[in-house]
């Protein structure tokens, strides 16, 4: 094989760009909601469901799904849960601080398969972050989609993310929003129970396109509900989480059988991953 010497003409995929934090809000005790702008003023162009490697020099990088829609070009949102070296350091940052980003990376929601269809989004816990990108997108281009239903489940009311959004969605005509918590507190007047308890509340067509993002245990139960409705599995899209490290399909850490979550996903059609023994 002849090698064309062009290594010095190609951008280094590990060289990050700088972004500035324009807003930082402590969303829950462990999660912080950042609004960012690229420091060079360029827009971040991405698709809902894609990820970015968020980094701090000296600390490392973590893969994070975009939590805002690319239709909102002014800035982009990332929600970081403080669980490790990088996320812990990032969560100490405030407005005006800078971070490094590489991306967008990976394969997001296939919008062409959702357009012109009924869309159901089922989000659990922090799974609302990457799906919020899609939710905002649908709301911003509402006429491109048919019926839009959102189910959101949290462990407890105080762990709900995006409180302002939820307040807005609850009364919204453009979408049918249903929420539940596993454990209520005295302030909670809504549904109590696991995510599947929301399904009896709406009548869904088997033609619906469904999007799922939540903790590992979540998928099995939600899929069972979707099967019962008769939604074919190729019309179900899952947003998966693994130990993504490099974000560019090289380092091997995020493999599910033969798939690399960071480049083949993180969004997959359920039909493509249902037979992967390591997926669920």
């Amino acid at each position, binding site marked *: 094989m002849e090698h064309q010497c062009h290594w010095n003409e190609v951008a280094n995929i590990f060289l990050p760009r700088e972004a500035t934090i324009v807003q930082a809000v402590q969303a829950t005790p462990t999660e912080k909601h950042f609004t960012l702008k690229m420091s060079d003023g360029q827009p971040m162009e991405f698709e809902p469901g894609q990820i970015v490697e968020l980094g701090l020099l*000296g*600390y490392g990088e973590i893969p994070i799904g975009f939590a805002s829609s690319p239709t909102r070009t002014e800035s982009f949102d990332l929600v970081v849960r403080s669980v*490790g*070296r990088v996320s*812990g*350091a990032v969560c*100490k940052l405030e407005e005006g601080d800078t971070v490094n980003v590489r991306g967008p990376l990976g394969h997001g929601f296939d919008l062409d398969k959702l357009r012109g269809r009924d869309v159901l989004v089922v989000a659990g816990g922090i799974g609302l972050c990457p799906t919020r990108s899609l939710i905002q997108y649908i709301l911003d281009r509402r006429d491109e989609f048919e019926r839009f239903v959102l189910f959101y489940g949290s462990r407890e009311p105080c762990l709900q993310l995006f409180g302002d959004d939820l307040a807005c969605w609850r009364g919204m005509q453009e979408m049918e929003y249903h929420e539940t918590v596993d454990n209520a507190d005295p302030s909670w007047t809504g549904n109590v129970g696991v995510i599947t308890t929301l399904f009896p509340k709406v009548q869904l067509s088997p033609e619906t396109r469904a999007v799922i993002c939540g903790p590992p245990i979540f998928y099995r139960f939600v899929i069972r509900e979707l099967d019962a409705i008769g939604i074919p599995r190729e019309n179900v899209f899952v947003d998966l989480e693994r130990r993504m490290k490099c974000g560019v399909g090289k380092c091997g850490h995020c493999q599910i059988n033969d798939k690399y979550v960071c480049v083949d996903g993180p969004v997959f059609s359920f039909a493509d991953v249902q037979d992967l023994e390591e997926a669920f």
Partner: protein
Amino acid sequence: MSKPKVAFFDFACCEGCQIEMTNYGAEPFLELLKHVEIVEFREAMTETTTEPIDIALIEGSFTREADRARLMEIRKRAKIVIAYGQCATTGGINALKNHQTDYKQFVYGTDSDLPHLDSKKAYGVDHVIKVDYYAYGCPVNKYEVLQILLHLLHGKEPVIPNYPVCVECKRRETVCRFDEGDYCMGMVARAGCGAPCPAAGIPCEACRGFVDDPNLAAFEKVLVERAGFTPQRAAEKGRMFTANALEAS
């Protein structure tokens, strides 16, 4: 912002790890002093302190009941405690005595009744106090201690390997001890040292202790089948630096 105060303390040990801390060479050490203030360091300075400390590095095992109060006192005034060196992290070579009874006579002879030699089983200092971070090795890898300090100065959790020494031997293309008819403990030993011993033609003795989940059954089997150990010697081989871990397993 004032520089973090760092102090070195020693318990039952040879203080070799403390000596290792003086071996960085002038340039890196002086550079480090731009970022930390060393307030107690028996092998290198006369001053001691009773003030609060940001980072206490503790060397040596807990083996005398009389040391309990001093350990607790250090813990009380230290924001971060690092156990460094194998004596402090797992009991180290001192724990060899934990399965012997007559060691005092052998080691100290007629002096064995002196009160400061009144010791019991040897443990890492976490037998008595909470330890935040561990720097393994006999002696410690001074560059790893430096890296731990640099991480902590930046508010980042240090990265301590949980893979065996084989990883580091292979990375530097060391000829395996077993291929030369020798034994080795590298397969169950925690890496992070850079595997200097096998590279110099001597076996790894697991001076940094075991990885989190050592396959000890396979280890004994390999020692018997490939290095010609008797089953008993194979079972006891792990004791040199890991007596407490073997006892617990």
